[in-house]
C-alpha cells in the first residue's frame, strides 16, 4: 500500500500551490460561498493551505488539530462541511469518523488523504465518509466540494478577473485610491519613456484589480488590455494601451481634483 509521509505531502503541496497561483486557469474560478467548514488537520502547512483557499470563497473555517478535537467540535457546533485528515495523533480520522457516524452526525465529511488507492477510498466510503479529497490539494476539486455543500452567496460563480465589483464608498479608502493613482500616473509616464515593461505590468495589474471597485470600468478595461499585450510581448501595442491607460488615469485624477 502506498503511504506518503507528511514531508512528501508538504513538498508537493507547495509545488501545487505555486502552480495554481501562476498557471492553472481553473484556479481563477472561485465560487462565492457562505457556510462553516471544520478543518480537522494536524499538519501546519496543510492547515494554512486549506484555510487560505477555503476562506477565499467567503466561507468560514474552524480548525481542529486532531481527531479528538474534531469530534468534540463537531458535537458542539454545527458545521456545513467537515474536512478530515486521516493520519493524525491522539485520534485518527477513521476513528473520529466512526464516532461521528455512531453519534448521528449526518453532515458531509470528506477524508483528506494522500492514500488514494482504490482500496483506501473504498475503506473511507465504508466508514461513512461522503468522499475523498486527495493530497496534494487539487483546488478545482476542493471548490467543487465547497460549491456542492455550502450556500452560494450570490447564486453565481464569479471569476477573480471578472468579479462583480463591490463599490467602495468609504471616503478614506477612496482618498487612498486616488493618492495611489496619482503615484501610478507618474510611474506609468516614466516607465513608458524608459520602456520598463515589467514595471508597467505591475502597475497595470494593480489597476486592473482595483479600479472596478471604485466604479472606473474604463480603467479596468484599459489595464486589462495593457496586461494582455505585455504578457504576449506585443510591446508596440502595449505602449499604446499603457498610454491610453495613463491618459484615462489623468482624466480620473482631474475629475477628482475638480
Amino acid at each position, binding site marked *: 500500500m502506498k503511504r506518503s509521509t507528511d514531508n512528501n505531502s508538504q513538498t508537493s503541496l507547495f509545488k501545487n500551490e505555486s502552480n495554481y497561483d501562476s498557471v492553472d486557469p481553473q484556479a481563477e474560478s472561485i465560487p462565492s460561498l457562505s457556510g462553516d467548514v471544520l478543518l480537522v488537520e494536524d499538519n501546519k502547512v496543510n492547515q494554512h493551505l486549506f484555510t487560505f483557499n477555503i476562506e477565499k470563497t467567503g466561507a468560514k473555517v474552524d480548525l481542529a488539530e486532531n481527531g*479528538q478535537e474534531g*469530534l*468534540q*467540535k463537531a*458535537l*458542539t*457546533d*454545527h458545521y456545513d462541511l467537515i474536512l478530515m485528515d486521516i493520519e493524525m495523533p491522539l*485520534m485518527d480520522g477513521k476513528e473520529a469518523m466512526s*464516532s461521528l457516524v*455512531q*453519534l*448521528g*452526525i*449526518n*453532515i458531509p465529511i470528506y477524508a483528506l488523504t494522500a492514500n488514494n488507492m482504490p482500496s483506501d477510498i473504498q475503506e473511507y466510503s465504508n466508514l461513512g465518509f461522503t468522499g475523498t479529497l486527495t493530497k496534494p490539494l487539487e483546488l478545482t476539486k476542493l471548490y467543487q466540494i465547497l460549491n456542492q455543500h455550502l450556500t452560494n452567496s450570490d447564486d453565481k460563480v464569479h471569476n477573480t478577473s471578472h468579479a462583480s465589483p463591490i463599490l467602495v464608498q468609504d471616503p478614506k479608502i477612496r482618498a487612498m485610491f486616488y493618492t495611489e493613482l496619482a503615484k501610478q500616473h507618474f510611474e506609468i509616464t516614466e516607465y513608458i519613456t524608459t520602456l520598463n515593461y515589467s514595471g508597467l505590468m505591475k502597475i497595470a495589474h494593480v489597476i486592473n484589480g482595483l479600479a472596478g471597485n471604485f466604479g472606473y470600468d474604463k480603467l479596468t478595461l484599459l489595464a486589462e488590455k495593457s496586461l494582455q499585450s505585455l504578457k504576449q510581448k506585443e510591446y508596440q501595442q502595449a505602449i499604446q494601451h499603457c498610454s491610453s491607460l495613463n491618459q484615462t488615469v489623468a482624466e480620473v485624477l482631474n475629475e477628482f481634483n475638480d
Partner: protein
Amino acid sequence: MSLTINILLVDDVEYSRDLLRGSLLTCTHEHKMDIETNFFHSSTGADIIDVIKYNKIDLVYLDIDLPHISGLNVLKEIRENYPKLMVVMVSGESSIENVTTAIRSGANGFIVKPFNSGRILETVENYLKRLSKQKAKS
C-alpha cells in the same frame, strides 16, 4: 396528519430542560417540520423505564451529569430494555472520555451545552431518518 413525537427530557436543572424544549420547538417550527411534540420530563432519571413505557416515549434527551445517578448508567438501563430507542446525551462538556463512553454505552447522539440550534435540529432530523428507515424495513 402530522407526526407526533413524545420527547423525554432528563435533566435535574429546570432551566436547562426549558431551554432545550424551547430550542426544539423553535427549530422544528422554523424549519416547518410537520410534527407535533409532546414533552415529558424527569429530573432524576429514576424509574426511567416506567416513564418511557407509560408515556410511549420516542426520543430521549439525557443529561450526562445527573445528581444521584450517572446519565451513562441511565443510558445502560435504557439500552437493556429499549435497544432501539433513540437517546441523545446532553452534556456541559464534550470531554473525549464522556463522548467515547457515551458511544460505547450506545448513545445515538451527543449535544453540548450551551445548545447550538443547528446541532439540535440535526438530532431531530436523525430521529426522522431513523423512523423512515424503520418504516421502510417493516
